[in-house]
């Protein structure tokens, strides 16, 4: 696959691209990098294991060749002891061929051992780097999550302040309305007091006033009736007597005396 998908994937993986950051979670990128590093480490380790396996196989071959070489040497020695120089020569020439193979294998073995050591060292270094990256990645992820949380808290706060603003507005509206009603009531009172408006709500006061008026008015009527009855019965003095406590003296005789008496009091 070499199309757009693959290439974009590769570029994404290779570069911390700001435009891509908008679409990608940076924690995902970090985890991906870590996963890739682990895969690389795994490959290196597998490489070390492969080289070690090859080295061991070479060692086995070397052992076999060396035992064959020893066997041929023994055979040569025995052949010589038996006076069979031809056989001894054959054994030694075969042994010489084996020795050449042993030398070649030993060279290969030494090369592989060197490679193995290098790879082991590389794997160790890579392991250390991957471990360090893992720690850093977790720190960055934690920081990112914390930043995200902070943003959310900030958003929550601004949401709360908006809400508080709404409450404030509602209170303001309520206050305005109260003030408006108070002003209206005050204005109505003034208008009623000035007589510009009839009081449509002052029914209770009117009832009381009417009753008081009725009572006081009624008393006056009763008093007037009694006075008139007294006048008719015994003249003005009799009426005056009845009203003033019934002294029995005629009003014409008592008037001059009565006035100074009132003055003294």
């Amino acid at each position, binding site marked *: 696959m070499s199309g*757009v998908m693959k290439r974009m994937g590769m570029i994404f993986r290779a570069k911390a*691209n700001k435009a891509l950051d908008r679409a990608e979670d940076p924690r995902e990128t970090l985890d991906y990098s870590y996963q890739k590093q682990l895969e690389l480490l795994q490959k290196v380790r597998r490489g070390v294991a492969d080289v070690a396996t090859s080295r061991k196989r070479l060692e086995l071959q070397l052992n076999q060749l060396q035992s064959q070489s020893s066997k041929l040497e023994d055979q040569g020695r025995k052949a010589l002891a038996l006076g069979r120089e031809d056989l001894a020569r054959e054994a030694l020439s075969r042994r010489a061929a084996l020795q050449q193979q042993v030398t070649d294998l030993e060279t290969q073995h030494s090369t592989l051992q060197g490679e193995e050591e290098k790879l082991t060292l590389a794997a160790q270094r890579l392991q250390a780097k991957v471990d360090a990256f893992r720690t850093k990645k977790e720190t960055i992820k934690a920081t990112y999550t914390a930043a995200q949380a902070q943003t959310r808290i900030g958003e929550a706060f601004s949401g709360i302040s908006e809400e508080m603003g709404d409450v404030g507005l509602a209170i303001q509206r309520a206050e305005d309305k109260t003030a408006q009603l108070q002003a209206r009531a005050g204005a109505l009172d003034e208008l009623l007091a000035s007589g510009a408006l009839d009081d449509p709500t002052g029914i209770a006061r009117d009832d009381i006033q009417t009753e008081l008026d009725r009572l006081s008015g009624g008393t006056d009527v009763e008093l007037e009736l009694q006075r008139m009855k007294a006048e008719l019965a015994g003249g003005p003095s009799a009426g005056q007597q009845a009203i003033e406590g019934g002294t029995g003296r005629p009003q014409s005789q008592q008037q001059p005396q009565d006035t100074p008496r009132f003055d003294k009091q």
Partner: protein
Amino acid sequence: MIVRIMGEGQWKLADSHFVELNKLDDDLLAEMESGDEDGFHRTLGALLDAVRRLGAPLPDEALEPSELILPAPDASLEEVRDMLSDDGLIPG
């Protein structure tokens, strides 16, 4: 394999679907390189539709690395070309 459509999310697709996707993907690359803007948008739309149709969407909270990434549906040919240039959008 997991494919991300930028700005949309991720889809999990079976490997068997990649024959069809690869064909569209190669066409897309060819159209991008030849500067065929109309063809590019047509093929990109078809490719994105195929991913959505053939794949199972991954939940937003899933943290799975995307192996393949596709441009956003409204990406222009020029933007994609810039992203695919040697340096990408950020050099280095």
